[in-house]
């Protein structure tokens, strides 16, 4: 097992390194000079450009820059933003919690909804209701998240005036304490609903497929032949076995949703990492982009390893194979 996990850790590490190299290469191959964008004027002051270029080490060859970047990285320094001058890690620390909260809540709700629906349909596999709901999830899958967000704003905020349109807090009011929490919660209902609708089909399909597969296993027939009630068979055995792929999916998804909530943050004007990223792209704020991408790929890699670890706990067969 240790061997198996260490192999996965290697893959994860490799993945982060490849991601970083790729990102660094892309950024340096790209046309467009960050200094020009930073200085702004059509005819910038050459001295200012000179100072800034030296300050950020942009006059050195890319390989030297990369070496320096990695060196700083190992000391926990992600560099300073070209635009605001703040350390990148501080910006990320400030923007990440909201994004994490959004991603976590969306995945959590989607797992429960999708899981329940999947179990419900798996029990009626092939039936009319199952086929209908199956087609319905394809419809959900086909709705572009940003469009859905806009339509929800249109319906619930603009027309019905039930919920706030965008932002994280009501600017005109200054709530404190519980009222503040309530206000934020109200602002988050639509973004979370949008995200959940987008990923529910994924969990629905995973759960449905694995429950159907488990129901077809031979040991289920053993349990039936032994007189165990369908109820008990389902909750103790089918569910226990069917949950494995879902757990795997949750872990990976959680990491991807950090990037996946970008569009939702933009549509709803939420000050998370995703929406800040879009601004940074247009500003050519390279250290920030690198930092963001690093966080993203590290979290994917870490989740991958966590999931593998969970997998070995849940499925004794993996333990065996890897020994």
């Amino acid at each position: 097992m240790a061997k198996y996990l260490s192999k996965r850790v290697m893959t994860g590490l490799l993945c982060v390194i490849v991601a970083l190299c790729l990102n660094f290469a892309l950024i340096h191959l790209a046309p467009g000079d960050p200094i020009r964008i930073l200085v702004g004027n059509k005819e910038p002051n050459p001295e200012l450009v000179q100072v800034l270029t030296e300050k950020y080490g942009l006059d050195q060859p890319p390989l030297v820059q990369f070496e320096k970047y990695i060196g700083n990285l190992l000391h926990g320094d992600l560099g300073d933003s070209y635009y605001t001058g703040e350390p990148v890690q501080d910006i990320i620390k400030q923007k990440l919690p909201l994004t994490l909260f959004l991603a976590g809540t969306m995945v959590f709700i989607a797992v429960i909804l999708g899981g329940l629906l999947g179990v419900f349909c798996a029990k009626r596999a092939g039936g009319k209701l199952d086929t209908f709901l199956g087609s319905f999830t394809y419809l959900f899958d086909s709705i572009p998240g940003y469009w859905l967000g806009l339509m929800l704003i249109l319906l619930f905020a603009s027309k019905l005036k039930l919920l706030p349109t965008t932002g994280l807090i009501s600017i005109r009011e200054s709530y404190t304490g519980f009222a503040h929490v309530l206000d934020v919660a109200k602002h988050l209902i639509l973004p979370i609903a949008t995200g959940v609708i987008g990923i529910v089909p994924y969990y629905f399909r995973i759960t449905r497929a694995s429950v159907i597969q488990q129901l077809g296993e031979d040991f289920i027939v053993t349990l039936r032949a032994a007189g165990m009630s369908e109820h008990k068979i389902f909750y103790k055995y089918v569910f226990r076995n069917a949950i494995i792929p879902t757990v795997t999916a949750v872990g990976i998804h959680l990491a991807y949703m950090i990037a996946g909530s970008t569009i939702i943050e933009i549509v709803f004007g939420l000050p998370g990492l995703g929406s800040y990223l879009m601004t940074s792209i247009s500003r050519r704020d390279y250290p920030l982009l690198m930092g963001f991408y690093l966080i993203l790929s590290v979290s994917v890699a870490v989740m991958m390893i966590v999931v593998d670890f969970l997998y070995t706990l849940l499925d004794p067969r993996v333990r065996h194979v890897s020994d």
Partner: protein
Amino acid sequence: MSILEIKDFSVSYLGDDYVVRAVDQVNLHIEEGVSLGIVGESGSGKSTLMLGVLRLLNERTSKTEGEAFFAGNDLIAMTRKELSKVRWAEISVVFQKAMNVFSPVHTIGTFLTDIYRVHRPAAKAKEIRKEQEELLALVNLPKQVLKMYPHELSGGMLQRTSIAMSLMLRPKILVMDEATTALDVITQNQILTEILEIEDKLQLTRILITHDMSVVANFCKKIAVFYAGRLMEVGFTEDVLINPKHPYTRDLIKSYPTFAEDGTGTVVRIPGTMIDLKKPYEGCPYAERCSQATDRCRKERPLESFVNNSWSYYCHNPLEGGRADE
């Protein structure tokens, strides 16, 4: 005394646009203490019969007709609850693919305990453990097996565990559905010899489903021959094997090398293939391949004819006396 009485029993598999009559009006009496071997080629309905009797077939894709009396109660007419009480406690099954019989993510001990508790919910953990260890000893397995996962056991060990599991509640009937087919011949014989001993000890009635004539010859008191979903011949093994009445029984015997060797030394292959059960037919299903067949065989369904009250066959032109290899 009959312990299991199967009457006019039929099973159909329902496809999208077809119906397969997998078991066709079978009548079979299983007497207490008289082990029965059910033989037939694949697709003869031998497994379907027992799965149908135990109502283990998918109810949406199959249809069961007829009656099956266990101790005077019709298993087919029972409520699910009543049936649950009979399953395993009275009739238990050893399945073919032992590898898949156990839940892959639970230990053997957990799985066995769960099944035990279905019927004896109040049983204490310690008692159950002791009981399980004794059972494992009965099939020559160490008690460590209880702590292991299915993938950690060999095929033979799994099959032994599966047998131990089936004996857990001291059932009256043990159905072995191709239980030893996947094992090598030596392990197979070992296990079956052990079963014979256990059978006497626990007063079990064994129903052994197999495609292997030699297994039935060595390990069963009676034999029932199936073909295309129908019972062809049933009787005491020595009677039927030495002096088969149904031409199919004879051909099946001849097609086994172990039997042919001490006779003519050649294996005789049965010409043709089994009829398509999706299409309705009249007469005897074996008529197309049978050397004795007449026009009557193709048109009229043979009824049960008796040689004596334990030996009967379904044929218009039964073989007269003589040995199978003549």
